């Protein structure tokens, strides 16, 4: 690298001295940036950007994994078929219920846990470490443990219920309990990350405000509602939006817990799309589903961004 480019790392570029030199420096700077970025950019383009674009495009073809079937461009054919596919829209609804319930319940529980961890209680060290367990566990292991817990014939949940005289249930196998059961697992697995983020936010709130409110006679709940929560609002919004999107896109947990069953009651869209692509081998149709999912996610994201934008505008004097 040429020595004329050695100052490019500064946060603020040096003031221009002579026009010709600046042009040279800018070019050298650009060369250097390209050299730094290429090693990571190449695999990203090959294995992420190109597949993403061709994934979108595949939705407009009739590609299958069967035999040596030829690939035809069929325009909106898949989307028209998809539009009346009640199995897909059913899974779409389940996905929204699943992601919404997990995101909200995780937020509420994590808020509670973060408040406890931010208080003057003992046992906080132990709680912090224990609270990390769901995060560190491989999702497959999480699913395996909860399958054991929910097992109607040998699980501790039914064991405990029967010990107090309540009949147990086939939690993951019954139409009515399967979705709530997987939601509980989703919340269990989601609490650590959200708690850590909320805790980080809480620790950046000045204690002065809290104390001032306390002096004014505000109780615990009013202090939380009027001081803590408004200060956390941006974090809460971001965490909930991201959590919703992650859960909506999630796969492994439910796949191992129920494989979408019973009777499709826990069939979230990524799972349905996976089965369509790799079991039914309908690559084109599955890609069209993926396209619809991306549009849905972009809509959710834009709602969030519009909200953020309004907030930013409203905050101006």
């Amino acid at each position, binding site marked *: 690298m040429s020595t004329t480019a050695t100052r490019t790392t500064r946060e603020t*570029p040096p003031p221009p001295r002579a026009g010709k030199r600046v042009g040279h420096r800018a070019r050298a700077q650009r060369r250097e940036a390209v050299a730094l970025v290429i090693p990571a950019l190449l695999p990203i383009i090959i294995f992420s950007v190109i597949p993403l674009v061709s994934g979108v495009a595949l939705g407009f073809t009739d590609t299958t994994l069967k035999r040596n079937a030829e690939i035809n461009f069929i325009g909106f054919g898949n989307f028209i078929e998809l539009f009346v596919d009640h199995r897909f829209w059913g899974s779409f609804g389940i996905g929204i219920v699943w992601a919404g319930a997990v995101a909200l319940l995780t937020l509420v529980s994590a808020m509670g846990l973060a408040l406890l961890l931010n208080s003057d209680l003992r046992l906080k060290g132990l709680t912090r470490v224990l609270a990390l367990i769901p995060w560190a566990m491989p999702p497959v292991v999480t699913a395996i443990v909860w399958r054991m817990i929910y097992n109607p014939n040998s699980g*501790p949940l039914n064991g405990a219920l029967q010990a107090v005289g309540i009949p147990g249930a086939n939690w993951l196998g019954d139409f009515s309990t399967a979705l709530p059961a997987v939601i509980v697992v989703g919340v269990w697995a989601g609490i650590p990350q959200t708690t850590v983020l909320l805790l980080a936010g809480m620790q950046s709130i000045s204690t002065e405000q809290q104390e001032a409110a306390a002096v004014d006679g505000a109780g615990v709940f009013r202090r939380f509602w009027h001081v803590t929560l408004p200060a956390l609002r941006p974090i809460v919004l971001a965490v909930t939006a991201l959590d919703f999107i992650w859960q909506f896109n999630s796969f492994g947990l439910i796949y191992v817990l129920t494989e979408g069953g019973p009777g499709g009651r826990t069939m979230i869209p990524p799972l349905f799309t996976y089965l369509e692509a790799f079991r039914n081998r309908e690559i084109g149709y599955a890609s069209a589903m993926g396209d619809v999912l991306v549009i849905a996610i972009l809509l959710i994201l834009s709602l969030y961004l519009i909200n953020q934008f309004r907030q930013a505008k409203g905050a101006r004097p």
Partner: protein
Amino acid sequence: MITRRPWYGTALMYAALAGFLVFLGFPLLWLLSASFKSSGELNSLAINLLPAEWDFSNYASALARQNLLPAAGNSLLVSLATMVITVLLSMPMAYALARLKGRLRAAGTVWILTSQVFPSILIIIPLFLVLRSINLNDTLFGLILVYVTFTLPFTLWMLQGYVAAIPADLEEAGEMDGASRFTILRRIVLPLLAPGLVATAMFTFVSAWNEFFLALVLLQSPELYTLPIALRSFLGAEGQTQLGPLAAGAILATIPSLIIFTILQKKLTGGMLAGAVKG
């Protein structure tokens, strides 16, 4: 706190804390105890948190299953390779993202953030076709390449945060002394970045170690299965599964990430708003 909490407030808070402790900790305890239980005890509705009889054979029979040890070996190989390649590739770009201004940085940031929200399923379908056409599907090398790509955005995000925390003045001082860019990077930036690199590397390792979905799609040969896929293949029809060895295998699969997460505990805070390899 200036105000004093009434005694029942404190009691309520401890009750809530105990509730969380049980809810969050119980599954791991149950798994641990199941791994030491005899199959008779495991198939009953008894809710003993401690095994009535300690059965240590589950671990032996888990390891003796034909695919568990090789699967652990595959997982270790894939995770280590992903870790090394990802960190090496992301170091320069993270440096560029943190230090440069302008369109490149903006584009990089937008891409990093948006890449976190696309469903993996949309990318894996064409990726599967691409890898198949170059005969890399159903290979560990193909899986490593995919892991590297899926982990890069998050790694870049983490690392650029660590770079940004290094004062640029230090690098300028190096320039004044006439050091070359390479020397500055090696002598000044790299040593200061080391803790961040270690944290990022560990996080990448855990992400690859725990990953399930991409391995499920890309690996078909049982001898190539990673640990999560091998564990899932333990699960037969309900009732036929040997729960003891399954629990033992699950414990063994959790230990590395649990250790790393405990070490990383303090680092897993605010800036990490993105997910790693998506499960």
